[in-house]
């Protein structure tokens, strides 16, 4: 159980990577952008992949009536996410510590994992909602109003995961370093649960 608790203490620390590395990355390449434009989505805001990328993405998107990309102060999420992640790290380490001292059972490890997974799914849902709004809530006075072959207005929601062709752009959306670190950390806690469970069984 001591070993399992140590693993449980280490796992949540990987989530601290989210304060340094982006959670998600969206790249936009086109014939006239051989070096693609890119945005990194951090838990506290959206940043350039290369300097001026956001400005240039906004510049291009205004033709089709998309809003400019949100600044940190434009979305409550960018204020809240860091608090939630910070809180979860603290909680995870605390559970590990209490496990180490024999105050809580290994089941708490799974509890933390489930809570984190729920929060993660909620976060993804919220992120997707924003992308839907970003890609479909278009300015009625847009310079270019494009329609699908069936006559419905064309929308520009970036994919949540993977690749999509949008007008002349190839858009690729994938988890980035921060997300992979979070995933690794969460796997640690699952592992901690199993190690705890095994040691319980062998006793």
């Amino acid at each position, binding site marked *: 159980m001591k070993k399992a608790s140590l693993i449980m203490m280490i796992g949540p620390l990987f989530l601290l990577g989210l304060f340094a590395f982006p959670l998600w990355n969206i790249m936009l390449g086109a014939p006239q952008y051989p070096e693609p434009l890119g945005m990194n989505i951090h838990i506290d805001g959206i940043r350039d992949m290369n300097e001026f990328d956001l400005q*240039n993405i906004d*510049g291009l998107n205004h033709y089709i009536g998309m809003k400019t990309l949100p600044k940190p102060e434009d979305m409550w999420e960018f204020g809240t996410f860091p608090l939630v992640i910070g809180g979860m790290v603290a909680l995870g380490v605390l559970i590990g510590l209490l496990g180490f001292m024999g105050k809580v059972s290994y089941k708490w490890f799974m509890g933390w994992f489930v809570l984190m997974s729920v929060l993660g799914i909620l976060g993804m849902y919220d992120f997707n909602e924003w992308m839907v709004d970003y890609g479909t809530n278009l300015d009625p006075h847009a310079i270019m109003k494009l329609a699908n072959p069936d006559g419905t207005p064309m929308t520009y929601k970036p994919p949540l995961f993977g690749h999509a062709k949008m007008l002349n752009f190839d858009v690729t959306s994938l988890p980035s370093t921060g997300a992979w670190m979070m995933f690794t950390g969460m796997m640690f806690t699952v592992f901690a649960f199993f190690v705890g469970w095994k040691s319980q069984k062998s006793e």
Partner: protein
Amino acid sequence: MKKYNYFITALIASVLLLAGCGNQNGNGGSNSALASNNAEKVYVAPGEQDEFYAFLSGGYSGNLTVYGLPSGRMFKEIPVFSQFPTSGYGYSEETKPMLNTSFGFVPWDDAHHPDISQTNGELDGRWIFINGNNTPRIARISLSTFETEEIIEIPNSAGNHSSSFITENTEYVVAGTRFSVPVPQRDMPINEYKGNFKGALSFISVAPDNGRLNLEFQVMMPGFNYDLSHPGRGKSHGWFFFTTYNTEEANSLMEVNSSQNDKDFIAAVNWKIIEEYVKNGGGKKMPANYAHNVYSDETHTGTTTMKKEVLTVDPLEVPGAVFFLPTPKSPHGCDVDPSGQYIIGNGKLSADLTVHSFDKMIAAIEGKKFDGEAYGIPILKFEDVLAGTVKSGGLGPLHTEFDGEGNAYTTFFISSEVVKWKLGTWEVIDRKPTFYSVGHLMIPGGNSRKPFGKYVVAMNKITKDRYLPTGPEMEHSAQIYDISGEKMELIYDFPTHGEPHYAAGCPAELLAPKSKKIYRLDENKHEFATLTPDKARVERIGNEVHIYMSTIRSHFTPDNIEGIKVGDKVYFHITNHEQDFDVPHGFSIIGQNTSELLIMPGQTKTSIWEPKKVGVWPFYCTDFCSALHQEMQGYVRVSPASSNIELSWSLGD
């Protein structure tokens, strides 16, 4: 008279050789396997990039052109000494000062010899320098912005031809006068030239951090013509070598009268000794008046300072500083091999090349073995300094470069060929025809300690039938030879712009990674910049109207302006707010008595418009900047001079 006969013989021989050339087209076309092999060598597939940059002087275009090797594709024309309506260089208020001289605004020059900056004798790719021949000037061009940053005028000089060559740590860029002139200039009979005119060799320091030029001193030499020059390197670092002609000091019918002496000189100048002399207070300050023009890519503005004094050095007062090396037949090119040991005089009215030895020169100087003097300057004995003679069999050698493998390549103007020969043994290894009448040639890094001996580019003076005809006037032609093998291989022809007199090349990776993509708007310190659209405005000061305008795809802010009157002087100060690579905007307005502006991302440029007619006049963006480029336009309402309509401006309402 012996000399004159020789010249005639040479001319006849050249006619015969030219006729001989007509029979072979020299493109390898007779052997199709070879031709397709050559095609592969120069083919740079779509989307691929060239291996080398080549900077070819524009000659009478006054500018510098940038090419890729081996494709021969032209990438850019960099305006230097000539107005360039394409970008507004020399027309915009910011760049007009770059063309100021003591003769006023001089919108043209004859640009000859580019040279890339060096550190320890190797190309470092910070700057490229080029000389203006006609109204003596030296320009420094940034190799991150590829724009002219500085131009300094050279006083006491005329026909600034033995320029702009740099020392191996870019300590100096050197500018020698081709025409000797009275110093100071004065009203005197032309036929009193001999003994009275002076030839100034100017040493201009280059500040290591920002490249700033300063004319440190001028060596006042006898009144010969100083034709070309090159720095010593390695062991001969500290010396500079200049070819001379017209040591007869003739002042008329020069083609005959300046070709009488069997030998002219290469002047060897020990600039380190002179630098020391000057540091210790030597030299004489004389009044002068010359322009120093500096462009800042922060203020995006050029400024002119008139300098009023120059330090001159009489070489006779600096013992050991200057010697003459007798060199046959009006030498043109003066080239130093990568080791710094050999100094090559390309006797342009001769069949042979004369190679001097630096070690022998030093020994002769130390042994004081002089063969008389000219105006007090010691002449070394020809035999004492001679390393060897290249008996080429060609006619009219002009210029030599090196491949770093112990070989030299010399152009022969009269016999239209490139000759490859071996340093040390002086044997001719190969010769290939050029089409036609080749002037200079260039091997990337060929004027440094470390040449990149893969290609040689020959720059020809006569084009004739090489391309589809375009009437009497046509571009000059260059040819690329593959020199990676024992024998040279002519692999490509390409037209050049203006008349390239020389070129400088370097590996692409030296420059491509640091080439600037945009100017940062947050670093724009232009006096009249509009840094945010809400600062766009129109201000009147008397009859001067300043329009602070910004651009972004695809509109001007403001785009409707009223309250302008006939007789106003309207300044359009336009700031491009794009921060995206390769998104310039242009500006032009009907009836503008100047060129358009082409404004790079983050830049501010100014154009003056003096409306002469009442009306509503459009302006528009000249650069196809986006799908809505055609919509990028605006109107200025011009009212009668007597009207009292208030200034107003707007966008989108």
